């Protein structure tokens, strides 16, 4: 009996309706993305939070200056080597000109044919980077690749073994592979 009473007391203290831990404005099972974690002494640092002074005119001027500099260097084509982050075959690759990529499946192009990679997330040169949200426009960047080789992978052993159960299965897996050579990354001379 005493044990049950003690357990009941414990349960009552731990119920989510405790007003000390959870402020009244928050509900545990609400779809509103507000305060989801209880506020403790370690939620925020002990020093007062200082936001930097926001000046919209200054910010707009700086942004315009950056955009005009980047536009100028793109129009003059005086950046050096470009790199790009490209989404291909369910993976993201950081890619430059003349580098090799191995895809672990069959690509629908024959050897020697050129492919254009359209999902470009980011393009960068030495002095500037263009970040897409999440992709950059098709008329802005052009990433071209050539299919060099279409082989099979080395024979991988897939073995399942359960000890003391007399169970083992062995399978040899050979996957098709494609090797791509990135030919070039080109930037269009106009940004908006």
């Amino acid at each position, binding site marked *: 009996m005493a044990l049950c009473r003690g357990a009941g007391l414990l349960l009552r203290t731990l119920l989510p309706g405790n007003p000390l831990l959870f402020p009244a404005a928050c509900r545990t099972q609400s779809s509103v993305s507000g305060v989801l974690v209880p506020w403790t002494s370690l939620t925020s640092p002990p020093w007062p939070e200082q936001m930097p002074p926001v000046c919209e005119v200054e910010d707009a001027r700086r942004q315009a200056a950056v955009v005009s500099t980047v536009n100028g260097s793109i129009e003059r084509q005086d950046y050096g080597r470009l790199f790009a982050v490209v989404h291909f075959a369910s993976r993201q690759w950081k890619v430059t000109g003349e580098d090799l990529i*191995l895809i672990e499946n069959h690509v629908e192009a024959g050897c020697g044919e050129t492919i254009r990679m359209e999902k470009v997330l980011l393009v960068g040169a030495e002095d500037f980077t263009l970040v897409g949200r999440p992709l950059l426009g098709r008329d802005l960047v052009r990433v071209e690749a050539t299919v060099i*080789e279409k082989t099979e992978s080395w024979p991988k052993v897939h073995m399942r073994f359960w000890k003391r159960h007399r169970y083992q299965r062995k399978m040899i897996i050979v996957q098709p592979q494609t090797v791509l050579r990135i030919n070039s990354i080109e930037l269009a001379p106009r940004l908006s």
Partner: protein
Amino acid sequence: MTSRGTPSRFLQSVLQNGVGRYVCQLKRLSIIFSKNAQSSLGIRGFIEEGVVDYAKYNPSTVVYVSPQPCRIPKIVAEYLNGNVREEIVTGKTSIQISEVLTKLTNQSGLDIIRLRKPFHTDNPSIQGQWHPFTNRPPCIGPIRPQKQDAEQGLSNI
């Protein structure tokens, strides 16, 4: 065996193939078969129908057809980097043999062993490789510990 017990190599291409023009890496194909044996039935059928078309579509590859008294028909492929690959085509049909030939044509002659990385770059860093001092403001004066009390306490000891 496991990938640790077998040899491995890095992803590479033969003589920067693809940077300028793509060159088919298959140099020579020798088809060794028997004129009368049953195992070479598919090969004989392929030679009747498909060899001439194959040779026409791949002008950079030389095809040698050599009937010999042999038990096992083979296709020996030699590549531009010097590697030689033999494929045994016993009991295969004509269509399977043409698939084998397309596979050999599309390969470069590099070894089929474990590849350590699925990419290869000669220019890994464009904006400069990161080190702990990138994007940190430079400091004026020597770097000292912040509190003078700690120093006095240590000197007392």
